[in-house]
């Protein structure tokens, strides 16, 4: 017997799945959108990874003037590269030897989805949202990230209309690398700020 408002856990997902199917069908019948519209939107989000953000980072690393423009207006800088980000109001925050940036949305899960895709589960979790503003280094340590002494942290709480991406420090050992090769180094977690990018050490065998 269920308590009021409670469904057995295994039925709860089924209930909302049925609700999703029902709402979708009602709205398609009403002509609000087509089934193809939904399919296209699903595909668009599936296809979106952090790759677009990585491209912006790589360009900023090789082009100081682009970097300056990107730090002044992230959305305009995305558009400059032909990256369609819709109404996204992007702020790019720069990691330096003195300061490391971390992004969180304590109130829900705001994230630059049009640029980076769907956020990871942990970004939306109670633990991350509660602790990132309170004990950021302890949280970073759980991701295996340990900042050098004397590096301060800037935690950005995405509470309103702006969305954030971190510009990670360029790894050492990447001189004269192409933008494509640089972009491939950039991880989603580095763009959120829970990770840093390791320096590149070329082994004798790879030369």
């Amino acid at each position: 017997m269920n308590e009021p408002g409670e469904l057995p856990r295994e039925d709860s997902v089924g209930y909302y799945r049925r609700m999703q199917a029902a709402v979708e069908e009602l709205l398609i019948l009403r002509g609000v959108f087509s089934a193809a519209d939904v399919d296209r939107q699903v595909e668009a989000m599936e296809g979106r990874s952090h790759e677009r953000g990585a491209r912006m980072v790589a360009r900023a690393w090789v082009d100081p003037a682009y970097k300056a423009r990107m730090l002044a207006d992230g959305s305009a800088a995305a558009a400059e590269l032909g990256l369609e980000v819709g109404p996204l109001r992007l702020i790019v925050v720069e990691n330096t030897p003195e300061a490391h940036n971390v992004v969180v949305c304590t109130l829900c899960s705001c994230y630059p989805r049009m640029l980076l895709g769907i956020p990871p589960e942990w970004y939306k979790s109670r633990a991350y949202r509660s602790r990132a503003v309170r004990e950021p280094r302890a949280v970073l340590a759980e991701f295996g990230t340990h900042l050098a002494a004397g590096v301060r942290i800037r935690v950005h709480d995405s509470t309103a209309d702006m969305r954030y991406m971190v510009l990670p420090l360029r790894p050492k050992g990447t001189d004269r690398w192409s933008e494509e090769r640089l972009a491939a180094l950039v991880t989603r977690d580095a763009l959120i700020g829970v990770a840093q990018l390791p320096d590149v050490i070329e082994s004798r065998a790879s030369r």
Partner: protein
Amino acid sequence: MRGIHDLGGLPAGPVERDEHEYAQWEKRVDALMMLLSHKDRQLVKVDELRRNIEGLGADAYDRMGYYERWMHAIVQTLIQRGVISIDELGRKMAEQAGRGGSDR
């Protein structure tokens, strides 16, 4: 009073980093949210969705999955706006259940 969703600074355990592929229905909830809030339709505002999530009880907020909360919010907003009626939704959900599984 602190909202149930207003989590900054509260004590919590370790961050669980497991990631999983979303189920098809979850991706379609996400798509629904994007299509309905798109400027060409404006059938829901993200702010209305958030308010409806924040209106869940604390237990429900914790117990429900991410996309269950958003589906709840989408439906509440559409009902509030008069885009769909409770009656037609109930009938459609029962139809869905008739195609497999119960409808509780």
